């Protein structure tokens, strides 16, 4: 029986030796638990050789998706293709994919060496000793080879889990929040190490995380998942700079989203009206089929100048009054009330120029380059994805939390 498996997975492996042939393709995947649709017609292509992050809040169906790829869960609808071969019906142990489990799931009765050798032994591989030693060296655990998992620290166990999967050279390595249990410093270190290993081995990594910062630092490409669907997919910069939905805009970093109306076009910009002021949005950054839009800009793209400073035609401008400012070391966060908008705007300004902070009550202009503006569908919930983001990059998430409680008192705008 084992021979058949070996032959099969070898066959799959050889078929994918060509570059660009190892793509993992999820087509219309659906998974329901009772009435609850956990994964909802999910389409996703993970290109071969990339570190691909599946990012989404807790409970959005990431683990379920990963388990379907591993074969531990059976999809109710849809197919999974690996290098063009339909593996939807293939049993778990025949799939050329390996998983790094969230809980590590190391075998407590086996030594580290035997844990790592497990997959190789099952497939009757040769040179097990050399292969295991080499991978243990890669994760810097040679000295631990004869210990049991319980004798290792959390970080070391995590690396064993990684080595145990990697040693099999899977076509796709699935990582389910592999760093979730580690402390901040160790997590940073491992993020770097995992990326390093991925680069060296050139394997395809599908990395699941709810930490937007982790996804952005590590991944070549990110798919943002919400409620069992992919909201948007792209390179980290692309997602951050040009979100297509309110969820993405809020989940990756934070965004100012203001209600607006499309008024017309002017060359390759769309002219919108926001709180009675004109805001210009590049055409390719408008993701709305309606007249009503949410016009967005990231807080750190905005600079705050005192009212009356001469305007710059390459910039958008909205005027308001400083409500609050807080000093966060590397920058200052301003909360600015804008006449005509219930929502205040946030601006994150780096402390590059000397001079006092603008005091609350100061009339100011908020200005930013036109290309940094984006427009979203006005029928969306502008608060989608807020508060579910983890790992503040610069500290403005904590301000979000305060704001959330303020909003909770007033109720949602829509």
């Amino acid at each position: 029986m084992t021979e058949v498996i070996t032959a099969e997975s070898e066959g799959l492996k050889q078929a994918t030796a060509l570059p660009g042939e190892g793509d993992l393709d999820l087509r219309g995947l659906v998974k329901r638990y009772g009435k609850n649709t956990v994964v909802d017609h999910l389409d996703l292509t993970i290109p071969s050789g990339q570190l691909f992050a599946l990012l989404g809040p807790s409970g959005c169906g990431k683990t379920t998706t990963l388990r379907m790829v591993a074969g531990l869960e059976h999809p109710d609808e849809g197919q999974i293709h690996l290098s063009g071969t339909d593996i939807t019906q293939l049993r778990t142990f025949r799939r050329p994919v390996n998983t790094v489990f969230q809980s590590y799931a190391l075998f407590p009765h086996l030594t580290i060496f035997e844990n790592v050798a497990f997959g190789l032994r099952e497939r009757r591989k040769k040179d097990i000793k050399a292969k295991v030693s080499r991978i243990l060296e890669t994760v810097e655990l040679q000295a631990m080879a004869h210990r049991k998992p319980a004798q290792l620290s959390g970080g070391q166990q995590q690396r064993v889990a990684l080595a145990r999967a990697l040693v099999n050279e899977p076509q796709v390595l699935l990582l389910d929040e592999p760093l979730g249990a580690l402390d901040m410093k160790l997590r940073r270190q491992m993020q770097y190490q995992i990326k390093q290993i991925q680069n060296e081995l050139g394997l395809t990594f599908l990395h699941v995380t709810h930490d937007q910062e982790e996804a952005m630092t590590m991944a070549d490409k990110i798919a943002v998942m919400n409620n069992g669907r992919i909201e948007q997919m792209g390179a980290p910069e692309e997602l951050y700079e040009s979100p297509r939905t309110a969820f993405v805009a809020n989940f990756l970093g934070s965004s100012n989203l203001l209600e607006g109306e499309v008024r017309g076009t002017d060359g390759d910009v769309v002219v919108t009206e926001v709180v009675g002021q004109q805001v210009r949005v590049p055409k390719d950054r408008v993701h709305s089929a309606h007249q009503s839009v949410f016009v967005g800009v990231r807080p750190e793209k905005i600079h705050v100048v005192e009212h009356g400073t001469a305007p710059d035609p390459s910039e958008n401008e909205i005027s308001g009054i400083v409500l609050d400012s807080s000093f966060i070391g590397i920058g200052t966060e301003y909360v600015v009330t804008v006449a005509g908008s219930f929502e205040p705007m946030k601006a994150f300004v780096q402390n590059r120029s000397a001079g006092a902070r603008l005091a609350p009550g100061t009339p100011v202009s908020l200005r930013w380059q036109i290309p940094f503006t984006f427009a979203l569908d006005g029928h969306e919930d502008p608060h989608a994805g807020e508060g579910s983001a983890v790992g503040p990059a610069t500290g403005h998430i904590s301000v979000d939390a305060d704001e959330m409680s303020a909003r909770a008192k007033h109720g949602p705008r829509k």
Partner: protein
Amino acid sequence: MALTAAEKRRNWTPYLLLAPMLLWLLMFFLAPMVTLLMGSLQSGSFTEGFNFTFEVSNYVNAIVAYWPWFLRSIGYALVATLCALLIAYPLAYMIVFKAGRWKYILLVLVVAPLFASFLVRTLAWTTILADEGVVVGTLRSLHILSPDQWLLATPVSVIAGLTYNFLPFMTLPIYVSLDRIDKRLIEAATDLYASGFRAFRRVTLPLSLPGIVSGMLLVFIPAAGDFVNAQLLGSVETQMIGNVIESQYLRALDYPMASALSVILIVLIIGLVTFSMRRSRADELL
């Protein structure tokens, strides 16, 4: 420097804390063992009284006269232990992995027989295995038993009785050790190319070994010393050492002989258990 009252009290604290434990050992373990040992070295008779004469010949006589009974007891107990294991393991496995919401109901059913007295349960088996009973009838109609063969009063019925009576003590520890296994480990094994059977062989089975070892001890030890099953389900030819000890105590009233037999049985069991634990290195698992 004189010790203050508080310091004196502190010196005594560990002993005070250990006292209940020591008392317990003394009362329930040491005292009976010493009495038994002393008794086994006495001489005399019930009517004339027994005296402690360091009568080692009691042991020689016991072994010479009753070694077949010892052998039979160990043999029956071993077979019953293996039968119990073969029944209990699949049963516990099914309860843990397949029963779903029936899990706890099945678990109650496993221990349910313990609510009836040992004697009553064993007597029930005399009916089940009787010559006119269902089991014998079925086996005869299937030609597994010929019409002039029977089950009751054979080694088969004694071993069946032992297996049945001690089965919960095998099932429960195996159930516990299987239930404790993190199911994600089995998933991890299949993710690492192990088929269902291989995952069982390399993960589930080794992780349930502690349960198997405790279960085997819990069945083998009482089975080796049992006399009820042999008495109710067996015949003269299937008597176990427990029957001999019982009749020496209660009928022959030869207390030294009965004590010597008991001591030999205890030593034999401890020896066998230690030997097999060493051989299988099972102590590392516990």
